[in-house]
């Protein structure tokens, strides 16, 4: 096992070195969204300024429509550096982290505009949601550390 691990780390390093050597520079979004674009704090609709898609990118997928807070998983898993153009890592990691004791709606209770899903008496509702679709729980509570809160009752 250790041998496999070393080989795979070596492979990652080789791939990285190859990338360094062959760096031909495809499109990558800038580190931060241009300041002079005056991105408002309100939920941005990217296609208000960008084309829905151009040869570099498909911006329409990143429109912050009314359900984007719940449904951004697929575009974020392909190009999360688009997220980091406007959001710091800590913003994402308030929800997407291995262990943050305060659930997001308790850490930011005044940010009601985010319509955070575990708000209110989710303890009661999760009995129903969890039986209807347990995969939605597993996505965030799917490893022993993130499931430690679940194990208090379900253990």
């Amino acid at each position, binding site marked *: 096992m250790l041998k496999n691990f070393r080989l795979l780390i070596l492979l990652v390093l080789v791939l990285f070195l190859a990338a360094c050597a062959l*760096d031909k520079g495809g499109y990558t979004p800038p580190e931060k969204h241009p300041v002079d674009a005056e991105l408002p704090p309100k939920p941005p609709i990217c296609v208000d300024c960008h084309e829905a898609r151009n040869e570099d990118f498909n911006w329409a997928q990143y429109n912050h429509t009314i359900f984007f807070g719940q449904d951004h998983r697929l575009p974020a898993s392909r190009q999360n550096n688009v997220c980091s153009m406007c959001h710091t890592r800590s913003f994402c*990691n308030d929800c997407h*982290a291995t262990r943050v004791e305060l659930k997001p709606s308790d850490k930011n209770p*005044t940010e009601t505009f985010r319509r955070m899903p575990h708000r209110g008496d989710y303890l*009661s509702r999760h*009995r129903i949601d969890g039986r209807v679709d347990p995969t939605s729980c597993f996505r965030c509570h799917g490893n*022993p550390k993130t499931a430690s809160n679940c194990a208090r009752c379900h253990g």
Partner: protein
Amino acid sequence: MTGVGQLVPRWFFCGLLTLLLLLPSVSFALSSNIELEAIQRSFERDVSSQSERVLPGYGFLKLELKDITASGISFHGYAWGRYDITDSKYFDNQAEGELVYGYLEYRKKFSTLRARLGRMHVFEGVANETVDGLWAAGSVTPKISLSGYAGQPVGLSSTNGRGGDLILGGRAAFHGSDKYDVGVSVKFSNNDGDAADRLIGVDLSWALPKDMTLYGISKFNTDASSFAEHSWELNIPVAEFTLKPFLQYYDYDSYFGTGDSGLYPGVGDKARLPFRNLAKSGESIAILGLDSFWRKSETWNLGAKLKYYTYDQNNNSQYLSAVVNYIGEQHTQTGCELGYMNGEAANNNYLLLRLYTYQDQLPEKFLVDFISSDLVYALYDQMIYNKDSSLFLSLGAGKHFFGDALDLKLSGDYSVDPFYTSDLRATLSATYYFGRGR
């Protein structure tokens, strides 16, 4: 702190403190971003059959040091700690803490090359994991990009320590002009030497005529030799409307379980609790849904969501919700959400009503800069602990000081529900942004 006893978090905390101490001497050359947030909560809970006041205080520190060297190296760190002032025994440990992330990043200028070393959260195709290790990404041609990571999975550290824990994987993507992006990703992880995850994924973003886009991901569990998940969506913009039909499919055996831990043969450590029974259930779920969004104007948005759940063994369920949202200047928003779960699979239904507002465009006569409120009401078809409803009410207010360098926020929450006859909670938070307001 008790929960920070593991070697790697301690290392990162030491590194974080060292950087803080060094900061004044190097700050002339650095672009830094430091945020310190303190949160004091107050609530009552039954501990050892008597009600006790619980007063946990939380601290969050975010530290970003950019351009540490001229060659594009930066540091990013985020950690939290908690101390229960009353030592109420509500928590397993009076003090707790965790390094959420802490890594050095190398970013080559005018290039796609990036590399990170330390603790980081990795989103790469099939991966959504916190890793202590190395991550690197770059384009080898304008059309082909690669990324890879290797290290130890933080999520598996709580079971028998970190010996035999490892994770590695990556994603290769092909960028086909303005037509499509296709990616292949892998994730391989072990817990205590046993298999935890063996996943291969294919993701696609395919631009169709009329600005439509098909995108999604399929995950294959090589250990179970079957697909764990298919999640695909079609984005259809029609004038100010956006329709998004979607299809999700999960095979429980492949999705919840993999590997063979010895403790739970055929299930694996990853799926221990509370999901291990699902990993042996032979069940599967297909979710057919439709998200619709109507941007009536820049200020008025309407949305509806429909989900239809079908199972291999269970009864079907449906969920329907509608949202109306008003968006004002800055963060001002007011809205209403109504949802109905026809939860045949859960032997229960509920009706959900949510009203919320956040107002930060207040007249100057107000003593605060913003106010917020949230009301969540749920009505259950069947009693839960002799109650058929939940009511949650939250009121909040906040003010900015020193040219927005300091934010003070206060929130009071009240809940009456199947678990609490009358629950009152308070949260006071202070966030200081170093460098702002000068």
